[in-house]
């Protein structure tokens, strides 16, 4: 009897502990789990189910068709063109943003007079909603009365059709997207720069390292985690780009700026082909998950490599 009491006493939470029983723990965790289930797990599973259906709301058809949506996707040239557009926009756009953002962060780390003000102005594009950015640049790039071509004309330079030329439109989209999100990379890298230990730089100075050597062998390696973090964030965002495409080019000319997200939206909400759109969305989820998994494995591998 005395042994059982001592065991029970040992199992009972300490007096004054807020978590008295497993029931209390469950009660506290349940809302978060419920939120995840309702707003994340259920939509994912539901859309997966729809991706195996032919569901055309306007035609009121709802029937199981197995993998037919996925098969049709594989044979859909617009899907593949959207994939290529998305890949180009992600790789080129993120590269530009990372290089430019890092360079800006290093520049502002010089703490020149008035740099705080310039830094604040540069961050402003980030605060705008992407569709507004798209519409704003659509006006700026208007071939007849937009400011850009007006200025170029005044300087005697060519005035291209930034949004109407199939060879230019995607690059214009990348420039506009980079204009908005390079400040994000700059902010992340700049914040990391402020947190770097000073003693490392002092040591490198003592060792006689010049500016370039310090930059390449000390600063950038220390910034690598922040740069990678910013790059991953931007890659995920750019991969999902819809708003700026909708506002700037509406996927045109032709399909030259149609991204996967835009094509998914078009199928779902303009053509009301929900099954097909769900299949496309799931392909995007798979690509994103695989991509991120590979990337994080590479990052962890590099960390292990550095430690050894």
């Amino acid at each position, binding site marked *: 009897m005395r042994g059982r009491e001592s065991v029970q006493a040992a199992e009972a939470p300490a007096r004054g502990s807020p978590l008295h029983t497993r029931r209390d723990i469950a009660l506290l965790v349940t809302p978060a789990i419920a939120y995840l289930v309702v707003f994340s797990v259920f939509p994912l599973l539901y859309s997966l189910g729809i991706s195996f259906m032919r569901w*055309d*709301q*306007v*035609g*009121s058809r709802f029937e199981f068709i197995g993998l037919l949506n996925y098969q*049709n996707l594989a044979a859909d040239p617009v899907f593949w063109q959207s994939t290529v557009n998305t890949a180009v926009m992600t790789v080129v756009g993120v590269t530009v943003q990372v290089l430019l953002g890092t360079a800006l962060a290093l520049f502002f780390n010089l703490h020149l007079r008035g740099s705080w003000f310039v830094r604040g102005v540069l961050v402003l594009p980030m605060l705008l909603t992407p569709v507004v950015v798209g519409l704003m640049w659509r006006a700026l790039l*208007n*071939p*007849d*009365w937009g400011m850009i071509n007006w200025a170029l004309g005044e300087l005697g330079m060519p005035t291209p*059709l930034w*949004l*109407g*030329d*199939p060879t230019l439109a995607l690059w214009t989209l990348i420039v506009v997207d980079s204009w908005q999100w390079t400040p994000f990379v700059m902010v992340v890298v700049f914040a990391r720069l402020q947190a770097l230990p000073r003693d490392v730089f002092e040591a490198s100075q003592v060792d006689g390292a010049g500016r370039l050597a310090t930059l390449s062998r000390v600063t950038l390696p220390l910034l690598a985690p922040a740069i990678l973090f910013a790059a991953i964030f931007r890659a995920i965002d750019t991969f999902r780009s819809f708003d700026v495409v909708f506002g700037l*080019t*509406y*996927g*045109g*000319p*032709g*399909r030259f700026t149609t991204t996967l997200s835009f094509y998914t939206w*078009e199928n779902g*909400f*303009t*053509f*009301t082909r929900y099954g097909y759109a769900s299949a496309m969305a799931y392909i995007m989820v798979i690509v994103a998950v695989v991509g991120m998994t590979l990337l994080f494995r590479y990052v962890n591998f590099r960390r292990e490599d550095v430690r050894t």
Partner: protein
Amino acid sequence: MEQQGARGGQDLVSQAIRDVLNGRISRRAFVRRATILGLSGGAIGAVIAACGGETPAGPTGAPGTGAAPTGAGGGYDPMRYAGERVRIAIVDGERDELGLRDKIPEIKEQMGIDVDLTTMALGALLESNNQNLRAPESAFDVMHVLGFSVAGTVGADLFTEITDWVADPERTPEDYDLEDFPAGQLEYTGYFDVETGSYGGDKLYLIPGVHSGSCIMFYRQDLFDAAGLSVPTTWEEYLAAAEALTTDEVAGNAMIGANDVSLFLVDWYTRFITMGGQLTSGDKNDQTLNTNFTSDPAVRALQHMIDCLPYAPSAVTSYGFTESLDAFASGRVAMMVFWSTIGGSLYDPEASTVSDAVGDALVPADSGQTPQAIRGGWGLGIPKNLPDRNKDVAWHFLTYLTSKEFEKYQVGTYQTDPNRASTFIDPELVTQLPHLPVAGEAAESARILEIANIPEVFEIVGAAAREFNLALTGTQDATTACQKVQEASEAILRTGGHLA
């Protein structure tokens, strides 16, 4: 020879005036004949006014006040549903909601009804309509239905049939005059055969509103006069005039050349049908429906647009609605084919630098073809999934919103195209908007897009707009573009079950 021709023309005009004054021809026939003979809109309106009889303002309200119909003598009571509320969703961005917004206090005063007005962009409205029509109960009592979406919504038997209501003297004012709506417009955004999925029939589901219209040609009268050119009536003349009128400051013509559905609906389709084109063959009900994008008129229509490019603004392949309208209104374009409902602003001195030099005419056509363009417009209807009381109130409200009086106010104040034939020839409105008689004639002869009765219409139109845009940018030729559109449309038709 020229003097004899001019005298002959004047004689015909005089004869037409005498015929309408003597009642030998209808006012509608007079408008048609006088327009062809070149009589100005103001003169046409003056003659119509001189005919007397029923005035465009209607017998029950002062002109332009939007006064509530009284329906004297039929048992109709404007205050029958006083204290009730009606919820209406209208498209945003086409000025359709502006007149109603102004009249909400008046509706409350004269009918006792509160109006909850919601406006949405086109895409959002289409989605909202689709969802609300299939919900257990609609969140809106009156819906604004785009003509292209009629087949998918009205055709799915989701709207209340109102055939008997229009004829019911207790529900509808005596002077409502359903026949004042052109038959073609009622066929498009009014009657529908749910059984066969086709426009027309004898069951009424929608009332045309808030605007309708087709496409007409707007041109710079001053430039044509200076160059000694006649207004083109064929596409060859159109191209020749565009070339002749092009200078360093002014482009001979403009078009919607961007990746925009109106590239297809306005510029390509107008050329296509007036070159003898028929967009479809076969029947969706036996899975034989197919498109004719590789037909001779289809390729010629696109090629004509390409041929017009050298005489268009250099950025025309980026032109959507706004850019085309801006270019003309700022005096940089000599002529263009455009939606008549949007062209009204060209006559507004505050919105157009050429307001006193704008002329209008029916679109050109090949020899032997009818000058006609696409039939546009919207309809207003009552969802089926509503309590009966809501439906009754909704119809009561609709008799106001689609009345002659309200329409005159809407057109006069916001320059949208009318739906009623009488409004097109209202003398006051014609003085203000000289293009109305021609717009009315265009609305009478307009053609319903042949693929409008299938749910995939937006997909096919979008595919065509993209490929045609690429042809205009020089990325591909007209034949290749039309071939690609044909392949894409066949794939869409097969997926939709309309083509085996």
